[in-house]
């Protein structure tokens, strides 16, 4: 869906989306990485379980919510990607274990 322009000054590293290794670069957001990695979605909604992808990239739509390093419902467009980050795409309602 999206591709990176060449930028040799940026360091590349791996992150994991649902366990699959994906290449990321310094300074980009988790949402940007999601838009490069098929199937390009952040989650299936809690209401009707329809697929959603990052939409506004500026923190006002909440369609890019995903689980990042164990923290649920993170606005991935506001979080810079870090080496080794583990991103999980939620499906439906979150199940809370007490």
């Amino acid at each position, binding site marked *: *869906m*999206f*591709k*990176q*322009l*060449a*930028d*040799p*000054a*940026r360091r590349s590293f791996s992150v994991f989306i649902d366990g699959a290794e994906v290449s990321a*670069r310094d*300074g*980009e*957001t988790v949402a*940007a990485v999601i*838009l*490069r990695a098929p*199937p*390009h*979605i952040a989650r299936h*909604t809690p*209401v*009707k379980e*329809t*697929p*959603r*992808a*990052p*939409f*506004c*990239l*500026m*923190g*006002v*739509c*909440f*369609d890019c*919510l995903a689980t990042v390093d164990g*923290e649920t*419902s993170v606005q991935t*467009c*506001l979080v*810079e990607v870090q080496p080794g980050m583990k991103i999980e795409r939620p499906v439906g309602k979150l199940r809370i274990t007490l």
Partner: protein
Amino acid sequence: MNSRHDILIVGAGPAGMAAAIELRRLGFAPLVVDEQSAPGGQIWRDVERPRPDALRNALGPDYAAGAEVAGQFRASGVDYRPGTRMWHIEPGLRVFLSQAGKAFVAEPKALLLATGAQERPAPIPGWTLPGVLTVGAAQILMKGSGQIPERPVWIAGSGPLPILYMRQLVAAGGQVAGYLDTTPRGAALRALPHLRSALRGWADLRKGLAWMRALKAGGLHIEKHVTDLVATGTERLEALSYRTADGKAHRVEAEVLLLHEGVVPSIHGTLSVDCAHVWDEAQAALRPALDDWGMTSVEGLYVAGDGAGIAGVRAALARGRLAAQGIAARLGREAGAAEVAGARAELRAASASRGFLDAVFPAPGSSVEIPDDTIVCRCEELTAGEIRAAARIHRGGPNQVKAVTRCGMGPCQGRQCGYTVNRILASAYGQSQADVGFFRIRPPLKPVTLQELAALDEGREAP
């Protein structure tokens, strides 16, 4: 961890940075918080990053100019906390914030909201499909991640931003499949009375015209006065259909569609503390009522930048300085008369072409029917048909419709549906959009965890 600053600035875009720089110059020590990880706001997002020449040139000089302001902001020595969300404001100015999962409270004597703008929701059938984004989102991806659509992209909407983004995208080596201009017929004619004032901002208008000429010379496919835009697909965007000015229906395959129908002030903060607002007819949006310094009807609460009404980056810098000067005077230190006059003159000059732009790119009004199957509330997945059905029974306005449908109760708190509900109800009730108004905004302004809340009371940090 609680802040002891006398002045809190929320937002480190042009207005927030300009205010901070001016307050530092006047001898104050404000705290600046911002959601992003770097200063610049959306317009100058990630502006400090060194870039390859090709990308820097593609983004253009107006973007690059932000680096100087960000540099002054950093050099001012201001206390700046990036990655910090504001999630509640209480009367008497207690402001609740969170940074890295830790909540804290600020009790400033003056609060400046420089939270900018967001794109006006552009609801069409299928706009929740993966593959549909906003034009602003695509531009942010280019600035922050050096990322562009893989294949020729469809762009639909109206306003200066699609033109700027297309120019930047093409310069960076991307391709536009087509520009579906939804600006209604006759807008240019209605803009003519504003032209004289706009000529004082001639440089900006000429820039826009030059970009459009260059895009056309490059073979850009443009359709004017497009209506009935629909995005279709099952798991993702697969095709678009639309109607052109000659009445013909078209269908094209598409992987990415970018939407844009202008920008509106970010008003959740000021609405949440019941600041007085006015309905701006020309921009079809609410903005807080402000005095000459940017102070709202709530004592000590100021707004600067596009949150005060859409006026662009130059005006945002001037409004930031004016708000800083107003706050300084309030705290007993007058800025020089020449500095104040300079900021006012700059604001006037920067606003010269706004009336023309508002008229040339009008917001879709309540007369434009949103199809029943269009999702209005992206969070609760409610359609225009469902909102209309509720409006037929419940005549009490947006809050009643919200209560019976859950529209606007999801995590975005009405940011993506508020103005659409306003349009639908205006049409259903036969009222003006100004009379229908907006949802009542309740805390939290942004989601906050129980852990953060629990740790607040004793002023200790969350575990």
